[in-house]
């Protein structure tokens, strides 16, 4: 039994060998666009983390009607909104919410959908069939509509929005992980591990996950940007983050009122979203190429 255990841990192909990470990083660094994405995203994440130091949350929500609707100036580089609040500070604090929801929902979605997809592919047959047919049903409901009804049921709040986004994305994640798992589940080394008496749990954890983790990291990264866009859409439809808390999508919908007089108010939060999600997409592209150079186009 002891021998079996050591076989299991030795036999696993670990992604986390330092040399391999170094190799991936070396390939990644060569991709200029991906590096640019990484740098921009890091700056935005830092700004979100230290938002309180850039401008307090209180100043982001406190009204100052005297200074309302000012054009961009050195004092307010993005100008001020209809209540006189500095738009730059609101964008920074909005980033905190948008980026947090984006990353949290994407990682949680990958974990929930991933476990479902992997188990489904591993056990196959009737169980797999039942899971896939259920997912077919969910897929016939547009994602945004499902998220919208869920937010209406759960109530508006950061955690509820994350839950709604995760549930509405589970089918997509489960399908991706299922497809990756099907690619390795028939391999000889899985058969060998099974013949050696390794438990199903152990096989999935030590033999399947390490072999599919690369593409999953890429998918999770890419999904952060669609989650940010989805959150923005929910806010725009009036069932997202509620006022006065700033969120990039909510900032755009608040600015919509002033489209005729102050169109720049729409421009800046939109550029924040574009900058963040373009960086994430480029980073994901770079990661994909670095993790598997064969796929490089």
């Amino acid at each position, binding site marked *: 039994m002891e021998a079996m255990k050591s076989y299991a841990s030795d036999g696993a192909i670990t992604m986390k060998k330092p040399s391999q990470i170094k190799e991936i990083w070396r390939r990644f660094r060569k991709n200029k666009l991906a590096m640019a994405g990484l740098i921009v995203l890091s700056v935005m994440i830092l700004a979100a983390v230290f938002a309180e130091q850039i401008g307090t949350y209180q100043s982001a929500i406190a009204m100052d009607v005297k200074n309302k609707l000012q054009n961009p100036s050195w004092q307010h580089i993005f100008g001020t909104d209809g209540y006189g609040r500095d738009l730059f500070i609101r964008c920074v604090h909005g980033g905190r919410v948008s980026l947090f929801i984006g990353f949290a929902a994407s990682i949680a979605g990958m974990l929930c959908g991933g476990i479902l997809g992997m188990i489904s592919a591993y056990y196959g047959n009737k169980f797999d069939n039942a899971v896939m*047919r*259920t997912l*077919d*049903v*969910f897929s*016939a*409901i*547009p*994602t*945004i*509509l*499902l998220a*919208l*009804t*869920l937010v*209406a*049921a759960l*109530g508006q709040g950061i955690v509820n929005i994350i839950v709604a986004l995760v549930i509405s994305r589970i089918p997509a994640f489960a399908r991706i992980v299922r497809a990756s798992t099907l690619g390795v589940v028939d391999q000889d080394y899985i058969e060998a591990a099974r013949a050696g008496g390794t438990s199903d749990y152990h096989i999935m954890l030590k033999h399947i996950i390490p072999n599919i983790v690369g593409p999953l990291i890429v998918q999770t990264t890419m999904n952060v*940007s669609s989650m940010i*866009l989805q959150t*923005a*859409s929910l806010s*725009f*439809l*009036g*069932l997202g983050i509620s006022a006065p808390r700033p969120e990039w*999508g909510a900032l*755009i*919908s608040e600015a*919509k009122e002033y*489209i*005729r007089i102050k*169109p720049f108010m*729409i*421009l800046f939060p*939109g550029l924040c*979203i*574009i*900058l*963040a*999600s*373009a960086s994430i*997409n*480029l980073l994901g592209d770079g990661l994909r190429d670095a993790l598997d150079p064969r796929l490089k*186009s």
Partner: protein
Amino acid sequence: MYKYVLKRLAWMIPIILGVSVIIFCILSVTPGDPGTFILGAGGTQADVDELNRKLGYDLPAWQRYFKYMFGALRLDLGTSYMTKLSVLDEVLAKAPVSVSVAFLGILTSLVIGIPLGVLSAVKQYSLLDAIPTFLAIFLAAAPSFWVGLMLMVFFSVKLGWLPSQGITSIKGYFMPMLSLGLIYGAQTLRFTRSSMLETIRQDYVRTAKAKGASERAVIWKHAMQNALLPVITVTGNNFGALLGGAIVTETLFGLPGLGTYIVAGIKAKDIPVVMGGTISLAILFSIVMLLMDLLYAYVDPRIKAKYAGNRG
């Protein structure tokens, strides 16, 4: 092939049932009741209960579900709690708007995406590749309503050419069409580019070049046909997604489509509206997906052969 189509049509029944159960369950746990919503703060508890009873809302959830679904079997999707209008009539009036906006958007995305995608693949690493690719990265990262608002700023506010809301004139379709076309066109461009790059490296393309076919003939005749196959799949999926996913665009431009109808229903907890709207969307979605699969089989003989093989 017919057997396959019939099978797919039959499969729509459990899908629709599943969709109705999911949506009904979510709506049942949504707080609030229609009586309170319609009467607002002014209604007494007795009035609210009376109205709820009239609307049939006093029954337990499972009874309301079966009542609704048996009605749906007879093509009765109920009447809206708020407006008292027949949901079926409303859906039939609104679906054409949604379908035509989705269709026009997809068409525009193809018109923008395919030529630019081919161009950037053929002129790889040149400025003609860099500019479209940059624009595609930018647009793929933009929220659709932001793109729509920017178009509004330009066409309605600055130039005053187009109405920002509604489709009272044909002009109203232009901005929704363009904003969807730009966003999905960015995706089409990326797919066309990578698929084209892969195709022009194939042996048969080299052979065609070697035997002296002109560059233009090689690209448009030999490479194009194969390069477009993956683009068709993506376009099909996009069209399906757009039917319901254009909710945001519909809301932004005030289009009387299924999307705005369902969103209003969700906000007012108007159960018949949300149920009827979502079921109709799911039916539309399934039909579009089936048509796309058939189209795919039509353009790719390999897939047709597979269906034919399965028949026995």
